[in-house]
């Protein structure tokens, strides 16, 4: 064999190995791919948020350091057109391309088969396709940044007429629509896999009431994904036709002959949009339910009630969307109905909270970093959920609609709470994913900064909203009645900047631990769910032999177990000692 032949073979082998990883069908690799993608876009969307906050604190002042490079045409100042682009892309990326890939794509893929005792997802090829469809969506969305006439600027909701060819000429908004459609297709593919995996691939003995709450969270979210993301897809299809082929679904009949109705899009968007809130938070709730039990060293309080609450919230989430549309001229009778249903959804939500507090009560609490983030979620979501009651009520919503109160509310619930859940998940499963431990001290510093600044940033936004500050306003100093709020806006911005800077602690911890962190054993947290019965990271096939489940996921602090086994937890493959 000549030297050249050997070199060619070596290149082919290396290339083949790389392609095997890149287009892997292994759920663990795909989960990591989703995680990396989501983290990159989280950083991008976070940077956009910093630019938004700079403009609101210092309207008309050039952005320091990067301003002249980013906005050379305006001397580094964030102008009105740029501002609309910033909040449009911030919202779009955060919801569709950061939080969704990190939690649902990343941890859903990584955890579900391992926690259920399966070797892989039900449809591995579909899983690969799901990731690459998401990747294509991100590529299309990134391309829209560089489109002629500027990037998309119709808000993350893309309401017509702003998003029609009249309101947003140019190809950017069309690319946005395509990206959202592809993103939805990816989500539905994932949902098909998650639902089928839970229904069909549970290990022997893994009854529904023995599944970890994390699995319940992902399963419920997947059902919502399968049912409601298609509604957004339908809205995107019609918007695409309106923009590209000139149909008139969303162009008002009062502006063109035989036109349609812009509010129609709002119906389609919010039929999807409200369940989307739960699509994002349900996995985080499930994760928190497990973590609170694990680190309180006792079973989850009211496991069945928690599961029932998740199911009730799932069902109710599909019938409350109208509270987003109280000010669109909705019939008062319908408004009352939606208000009542929205209020009712707080009942199972409170039951969830009672379950969490009951789990903590008299537990042997271990304040590890994942536990801190889990506790943070409980508090932050409590505040965010409580503020939601004011927006569920027609009378107060009419006053608060489209103010910063709404911004503060949905950031506390959809952003702060979900991010807390995501960080809890990262800290908890990092050892299983990468075989090394994250640094606890850096994790706790990161938690402290993030927790405090999330509350101050979004809490003060609630105050701004009560003061009457509208959202999506480029210059709050332009109106006399808003000028007294400028100092408060500056405090929000300072808080947001500290939050942004605090994430560097996480970045340092993540990358340092990836290479230099202490090696993790199979079960560093001493818990009993199935993923902790295999090595860290798990082998390609997950389990040498498919496990047989004999107990629930939270068998902790049982005196009989302690007496028989000398430890305070039971692995799910072990039966409770007599």
């Amino acid at each position, binding site marked *: 064999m000549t030297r050249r032949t050997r070199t060619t073979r070596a290149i082919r082998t290396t290339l083949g190995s790389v392609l095997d990883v890149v287009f892997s069908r292994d759920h663990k690799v795909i989960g990591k791919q989703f995680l990396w993608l989501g983290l990159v876009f989280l950083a991008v969307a976070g940077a956009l948020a910093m630019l938004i906050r700079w403009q609101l604190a210092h309207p008309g002042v050039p952005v320091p350091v990067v301003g002249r490079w980013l906005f050379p045409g305006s001397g580094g100042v964030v102008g009105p057109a740029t501002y609309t682009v910033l909040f449009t892309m911030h919202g779009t990326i955060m919801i569709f391309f950061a939080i969704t890939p990190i939690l649902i794509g990343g941890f859903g893929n990584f955890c579900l088969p391992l926690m259920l005792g399966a070797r892989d997802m039900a449809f591995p090829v579909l899983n690969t396709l799901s990731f690459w469809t998401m990747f294509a969506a991100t590529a299309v969305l990134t391309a829209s940044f560089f489109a002629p006439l500027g990037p998309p600027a119709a808000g993350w909701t893309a309401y017509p007429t702003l998003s029609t060819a009249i309101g947003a000429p140019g190809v950017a908004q069309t690319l946005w629509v395509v990206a959202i459609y592809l993103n939805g297709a990816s989500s539905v593919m994932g949902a098909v896999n998650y639902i089928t995996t839970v229904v069909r691939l549970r290990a022997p003995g893994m009854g529904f009431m023995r599944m970890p709450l994390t699995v319940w969270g992902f399963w419920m979210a997947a059902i919502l994904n399968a049912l409601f993301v298609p509604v957004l897809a339908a809205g995107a299809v019609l918007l695409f036709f309106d923009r590209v082929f000139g*149909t008139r679904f969303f162009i008002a009949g009062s502006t063109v002959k035989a036109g349609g109705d812009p509010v129609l899009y709002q119906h389609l968007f919010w039929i999807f949009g409200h369940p989307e809130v739960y699509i994002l938070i349900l996995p985080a709730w499930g994760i928190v339910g497990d973590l609170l039990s694990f680190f309180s060293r006792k079973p989850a309080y009211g496991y069945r009630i928690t599961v029932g609450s998740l199911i009730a919230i799932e069902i109710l989430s599909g019938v409350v969307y109208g509270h987003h549309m109280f000010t669109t001229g909705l019939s008062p009778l319908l408004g009352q109905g939606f208000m009542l249903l929205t209020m009712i959804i707080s009942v199972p939500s409170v039951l969830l909270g009672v379950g969490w507090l009951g789990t903590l009560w008299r537990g042997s609490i271990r304040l590890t970093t994942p536990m801190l983030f889990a506790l943070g979620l409980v508090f932050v979501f409590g505040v965010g959920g409580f503020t939601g009651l004011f927006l569920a009520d027609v009378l107060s919503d009419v006053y608060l609609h489209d103010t910063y109160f709404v911004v503060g509310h949905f950031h506390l619930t959809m952003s702060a709470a979900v991010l807390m859940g995501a960080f809890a998940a990262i800290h908890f499963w990092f050892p299983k994913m990468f075989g090394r431990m994250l640094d606890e001290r850096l994790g706790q510093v990161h938690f402290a900064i993030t927790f405090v600044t999330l509350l101050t940033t979004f809490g003060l936004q609630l105050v701004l909203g009560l003061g009457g500050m509208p959202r999506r306003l480029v210059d709050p100093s332009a109106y006399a009645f808003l000028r007294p709020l400028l100092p408060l806006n500056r405090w929000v911005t300072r808080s947001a900047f500290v939050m942004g800077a605090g994430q560097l602690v996480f970045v340092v911890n993540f990358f340092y631990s990836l290479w230099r962190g202490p090696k993790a054993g199979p079960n560093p947290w001493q818990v009993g769910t199935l993923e902790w019965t295999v090595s860290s990271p798990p082998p390609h096939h997950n389990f040498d032999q498919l496990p047989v489940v004999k107990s629930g996921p939270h068998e902790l602090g049982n005196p009989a177990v302690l007496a028989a086994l000398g430890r305070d937890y039971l692995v799910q493959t072990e039966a409770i000692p007599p």
Partner: protein
Amino acid sequence: MTVRAQDSGPALEARAATVAVGLVVGFAALVMTFGALLLAYGLVRVQATAEGAAWPPAGERRLLAVAWPFALAATLTAVLGSRAAQLASRNSRAPALSAAALAGWGFVAIQVLTARHLLALGIRPSSGLAASVLYALGTFHALHATAAALVMSRLAIRSRCGEVVRTTTVRAAAAFVHLVTALWLVIGLAVFVW
């Protein structure tokens, strides 16, 4: 040649059940997409007729009359193909799958011809709400019909070449053809008959 089903056994039965669950979820998502499109159609239709627009527009029921036999033929031959696959009968499977594919392509061709006819009459997507509905729902459904025809064609070719085509695969493809036909039934009734 009819032999016993080649792909049987507990593992394959379990796989078939898994595929069935996946199909139900996937189809539910597709039904929700078309359901949302029909909801949008219903709302604009009510508003349009309230403003005095004639509906359905004259002459466009021909689309329904011509496309229907093709859609039905596709779904019926898909049933035959599926049954033949279950019996592992290559002799009857390949012709049935080919017929299903041809019927599917026929359906798509009718849609294309109808769109051309409408354009020749000067009816464009921007001609009003009725035209918007015809083009948007017709095109979106035709894309799914094309996907179904492509899948059936691939299976037919593989079957004719003597390749092993799993019963599960044929049944899944046939189920997709049935769904696309059923969606056409609903769209047809809602848009052209109502």
